[in-house]
């Protein structure tokens, strides 16, 4: 909705999407009625923290928050990037902050090199492991030449204590290249990491065994590593990624309940199996990128030059659908959504046995150029 020439939204949901797209498009955005009916109205700590992060990677942005914190007016500036340090709120994981950075980092003035401190793995947000194994390959593909792209986890930190350290560096681009990813390929190997923190290291092995048992029903090339960290808070989990022969990655994870949660503690075997099943679910959904990469890859498609880009995705997550909507609001990009029909499906096979129906998303880029990046 546009009010007085400013895009206006209501509610706290998709807060990050709106701010990111506003920053990239240079359009001011107003968000009203943030948790007005809730018992604690206004912005939460992590949202304020996110605003601070946006402020520190950009120059000249104006953010106005009203007294109660229920309304935000954001006038974006220029993304500058540079060498930064940010302490993330412990309400949310580092993934909450890292995902937007993936979207913004490409369009900074100078390459971004940021150290994030906080919770690396939690249940709500994609963990850093997950981002590294699924978003990074996509980013690499989009960059074509990954000069200086890296995501390092220096220390693992689990909720509630946190204390994890992640370093993310990303080069800048003036324009992106349009791409057509129309084949997701077949899963050729499964890799993963089974991590523990402040619990007995055998827990990791127990998780690993359970998960591997599930995977071995399909594939023999399964290799999971162990990581036992000394953190401030106890916990364990498993993150697995399936790589296809066409170079796409599908990732899923599961982890134990945090000590503060009321729910009962999970058995390591259960966690391992849950992670495995989630990965199988993800494989069932399929697509050239997995569910958490969907918004990112769609954004990259929209921001290409005025060329046609195509991608095959599994069923869209609700978050992605909203992202598509927001993309249209900010960039006036409409994606063409079609059913994906696999080429040369043999007649002999009555059912394809390749999971859920896939979607083919096509769009023409907006011809976005990173004008803040200087002329060489």
């Amino acid at each position, binding site marked *: 909705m546009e009010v007085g020439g400013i895009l206006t939204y209501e509610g706290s949901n998709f807060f990050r999407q709106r701010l990111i797209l506003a920053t990239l498009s240079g359009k001011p955005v107003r968000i009203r009625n943030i948790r007005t009916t809730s018992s604690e109205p206004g912005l939460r700590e992590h949202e304020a923290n996110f605003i601070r992060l946006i402020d520190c990677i950009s120059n000249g942005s104006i953010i106005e928050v009203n007294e109660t914190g229920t309304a935000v007016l954001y006038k974006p500036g220029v993304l500058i990037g540079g060498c930064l340090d940010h302490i993330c709120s412990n309400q949310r994981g580092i993934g909450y902050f890292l995902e937007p950075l993936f979207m913004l980092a490409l369009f900074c003035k100078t390459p971004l090199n940021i150290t994030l401190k906080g919770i690396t793995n939690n249940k709500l947000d994609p963990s850093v492991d997950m981002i590294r194994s699924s978003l990074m390959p996509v980013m690499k593909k989009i960059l074509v030449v990954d000069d200086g792209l890296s995501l390092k986890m220096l220390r693992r930190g689990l909720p509630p204590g946190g204390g994890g350290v992640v370093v993310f560096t990303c080069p800048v681009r003036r324009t992106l290249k349009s791409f057509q990813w129309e084949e997701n390929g077949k899963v050729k190997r499964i890799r993963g990491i089974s991590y523990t923190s402040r619990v007995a290291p055998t827990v990791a092995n127990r998780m690993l065994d359970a998960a591997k048992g599930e995977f071995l029903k399909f594939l023999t090339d399964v290799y999971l590593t162990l990581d036992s960290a000394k953190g401030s808070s106890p916990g364990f989990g498993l993150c697995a990624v399936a790589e296809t*022969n066409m170079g796409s990655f599908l990732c899923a994870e599961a982890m134990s309940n945090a000590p503060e949660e009321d729910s009962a503690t999970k058995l390591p075997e259960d966690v391992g199996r849950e992670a495995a099943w989630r990965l199988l679910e993800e494989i069932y959904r399929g697509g050239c990128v997995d569910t958490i990469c969907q918004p990112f890859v769609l954004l990259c498609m929209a921001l290409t030059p005025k060329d046609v880009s195509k991608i095959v995705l599994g069923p869209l997550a609700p*978050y992605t659908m909203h992202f598509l909507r927001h993309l249209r609001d900010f960039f006036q990009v409409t994606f063409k959504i079609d059913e994906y029909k696999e080429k040369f499906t043999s007649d002999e096979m009555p059912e394809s046995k390749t999971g859920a129906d896939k979607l083919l998303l096509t769009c023409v880029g907006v011809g976005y150029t990173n004008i803040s990046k200087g002329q060489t």
Partner: protein
Amino acid sequence: MGEEADFDKKKGHAHRHSGRKAEKKAAKDKHVQELTAQQRNPKAFAFHSAVKAQRKFVRSQDIKSKKHHIPLVDRTPLEPPPVIVAVVGGPKVGKSTLLRCLIKNFTNQRFSNINGPVTIVAGKKRRLTFIEVNNDINCMIDIAKVADVILMLIDATFGIEMEVFEFLEICRAHGTPRIMGILNHLDMLKDNKALKKKKKALKHRFQVELYPGAKLFYLSGLIRDEYLKNEMKNLGRFISVLKFRPLIWRTSHPFVLVDRYEDITNPETVRINPKCDRDVVLYGYVRGIPFQKSQMVHIPGCGDCKIKDLSYLPDPCPLPEQLKKRSLNAKERLTYAPMSGVGGVVYDKDAVYIDLGNFHHGNKARNKSEDSEEEEDNVLQPLLDLQKTTDEKQAQSKIQLFPQSQLISNDDLEDDNENEDKDGVITKSGNGLPPYETVTDNTGRVRRRAIFSDNLEDAENGDESGSEDDDEDEDVEDDDDDDDDDDDDDDETENEEEDDHAIGPLRKKFKNGLSHKKRNQDYGQDSDSDDYDLDGDLQDVNALQSIDGNIKSRVDSHMTQVRKGSGSKQQIPGIKSNKDSDVTAKIQGLLEKINKSGQNPKQKAISDDSGFSNEENDSDDLIDDCKDEIEGSDGLLQDNGLNVKPPKNPETIDNDSDDSDSEEENDKLEYRSEMLKQATENFYKNQSTVSYLRKYIYGEVSDDEKGSDEAVEEVGGLFKRPTVPKSNTSGPTSRAVSDAVDTSRYIPPVLRNWSVEELQNSIRNCFVTGQWSDDKDAETLLKMDDEDLYGDFEDLETGTKIVGTPKENDDDGKVNEDNLPETKKELSAREKLLEKKRRLKEMFDAEYDDKGTGDYFDSLKAEMNQQAQLNRQEFEGLDDDQRVQYEGYRPGMYVRMEFTRFPCEFITNFDPSYPVIVGGLLENETNMGFIRPEFRIAANGVVLETDQSCKIVKKLKLLGNPENILKKTAFIKDMFHTETEVAKFEGAKIQTQSGIRGIIKKSKGQKGLFRATFEDTIKMSDVVVLKTWVPVEMVQYCYSVHTLLLPPSEKAAWQGMRTVAQLKKDKGIRTLPNPDSLYTPITSRREYIPQPLRIPRELQKALPYSEKPKITPRSKKEQRVIVVKDAHEIQMDTFMKRLKTMMADKIQKEEKANLERKKKFKADIKAREHTRQVREKRKKAAACRLTSKKQGKKSIV
């Protein structure tokens, strides 16, 4: 060029090819096979030096790579926009004449005066837009951005003018387009030799300025005020075959060169306030990249604004459809230049002339809208004219609607009017509508014209009379003829004749505000345009009158009328113009949609009606009807298995199902709440239907005009619509969604148990271990190859035929072809064969054909080509409405852009010779910021970087003096005034003039005295310096250029920036010069004493005698001073003399003795030598004897 020579050349003799003469000639010159030097003497070119060979190779590669351009994706659409040809040159150089001649060359049409851009069809695949550039710097800048070809006129008698240089420099900033120089006024130079010289000199100069090899065209002179025909032809051919390299700016920005504009402000508001903001419509071809709806645009010379509405129109100057013929016929040579009055219409401030003039017969048909033509033209023509006004206008000015509706309803209101306006009197029509007057043609046709304050002056010529209702009828009929040819041809031809008689004067003037025709056309356009919303019209209707009860019956009557196909007197004029094929197609689409959703034949009938009748009441009625229908069909929709929550608001579906492209805010929210629901429901099933998903995300149709639903709410008493209460937005469900947790991680609501075999099977083939599709499966591929290898073949030697045995089906049942129907099997077999062939071809190509050099450049180029192909193909099949959604308004489309709140000066001071360009701004270009330009010469610059803020600092040096020095510590005074100042700079680095570095330690007492340490002891005379920086606040300023809006007199006088000198002069500022650089009288100058010339002795020797310095005897030169000696000195002298004599004598004696001794010594040596030689001889003799003895023996032996 070489045309003159071509003319003079006589036809030569024909050479004989056979017969005696030919034989003779052949015998005479014996043809020796021509060999190159290398062929004749290969050894001379043999490979000698590896270094040379390497250098040669490198050089050849260098040359090759120099030719390369960075490959770019070619984004020109299949039907590209007209090429912009700009004619540039100084004043009085012949620009207009050239333009006129070129246009005549292409169209056979002579233009009396050319204003603004002229679009013509130049060939089967090329259209050209000519534009003349006046010598305003802003025009040059604007044109340099958009022009594809530049014809640069140069006066040969004068040389290259500054305008040309300026223009070239401007061009470079944006990427130089194709520039073709044209040398004019060559006939002024009478002397042939001088002419040649001039040509050469100018060509050289031109190539230096542009690039070596730049083309320069020569125009040899005028004949009857026109350039030579064949010269024009040549030039035209050059232009129409030029190829263009995509320029970066143009391939990343959409833009429109406006060739037509329209003021659609409500005349009433203009009357009240002539300076009110205007609503303006601009027309033109989209160029560059696709335009987006509601994009921010920049109009150079006017400012930034947002497109209120964008819609595409049929091409006014389309390319010929079939391309079989070699050349275009006269009819296909279309011209479109609204600003100069070609293409049927001329624009004044407030009136439209239809030109029926004495044009070429081919064009005549086109120009006369009343004429009968081919169908296509008929479809186009009314639409062309339609665009004069827009829905906006009628939406705002209620007068236009009013008389129309009167007509239909035959209200008594009309009668009132009729009674009053018998004799050309100005009539008040009440209801806040402007007055109108009636004007009669000499044929008796009467038209009504709205009168506004500004219109009153040019109130019409005297021939106005006649009765009102007659006029109406005739009017209607006329309109019928214009637009509705396909309905009844007989009628049409009759009317055509009638018209020809009727229209005595060449030009018929319609008043802009009230012309029926135009209004009708507007309707047509409305329904044509993408965002036509019935709702907008509703509002007006409501204001008009309350016709409620008999709507239904009237609808029916209209329906019957339409079916009959003849325009009855009662029929409203609007009906006709809507019958353009486009519109009907659209309506058809609409019908289908409604039909689908409603699945009700009855509704179809009604909507059919609505499509054809533009009467607002009808359409309104339709909406109501639709609502009913759709409400009924809600259930149906729901049953489709889509799990759509039935919308509370029938309007939702209404909007979705009709083509008015409006989606309401409420829908959005509803969808959002839906989404939550969906997430929890069976997810995959929902997503299986793509159409559902599309609707889910984008709300089926693309754009949401919130204006539409607001308008509907205003409908008020009559047509109440059950709008969704606003409270819905703050309802519990939406609140839940809008405040939900913001996470991108999607965790499926239920974790399925993947240990179940069934589930496992569903993803079995997602793994490499599963079954592969046929084109990838190694097994099938192998099998196919096997078939190929061991298929049917005939053994030629034995003559036996071996038939490959069909492979047995594998026992695992993977390939079970027998079960399939025969045809299917065959088909698949053929497909397989095709597939195999394709693969073989690929392999072959990879090895031989497409091998290329395999370098990066080739692969990049191939990639770009592939992308370009994909770009063209991807949306090819879709119809334009949908394409526009995905792609935007692609280049080559003729669009209508509507703007509101335009400055009135744009209209009042419009000058067609100043180009109006609408350039689309990219998303992030609308931000203000600081730019870092790089200036080349002091005149123009290139932006390197932009930022929202920037740090600019100024150097500041603080000076201090030591007060007290203790070894390496010193106390410094005079640098600061207070302790706090010192505190701020504690730890700062300081330095003395001599370069001894130090650091500020601590404030000492009062008045800014501080202690500092240095790396060495400083002196009391040292000055201590603290180097600091002071941030400088940048003055933020933005100066927008408003040249388009200036009155004509000021346009040319506009100056963007004053030079510093001008500024100083204007403000009376004088800079005081540095006294050092002032001239002062020379007070004392040392006398110049030249040094004596010294020639080195060696050189002296070498010099000839005449050059040698003459040496004068020394004695002469220097006179010794006479020394008078005293007694003692004399004594000493004599004593010394004696000593000297003694010494000399002694030396003499010694020498003598030495000589003696030497003699003796030599003699002695001689004697010794002699004896030695004798002894040697004797020895030698003895030795010889001995050896000879031995040899003698040997010789004997």
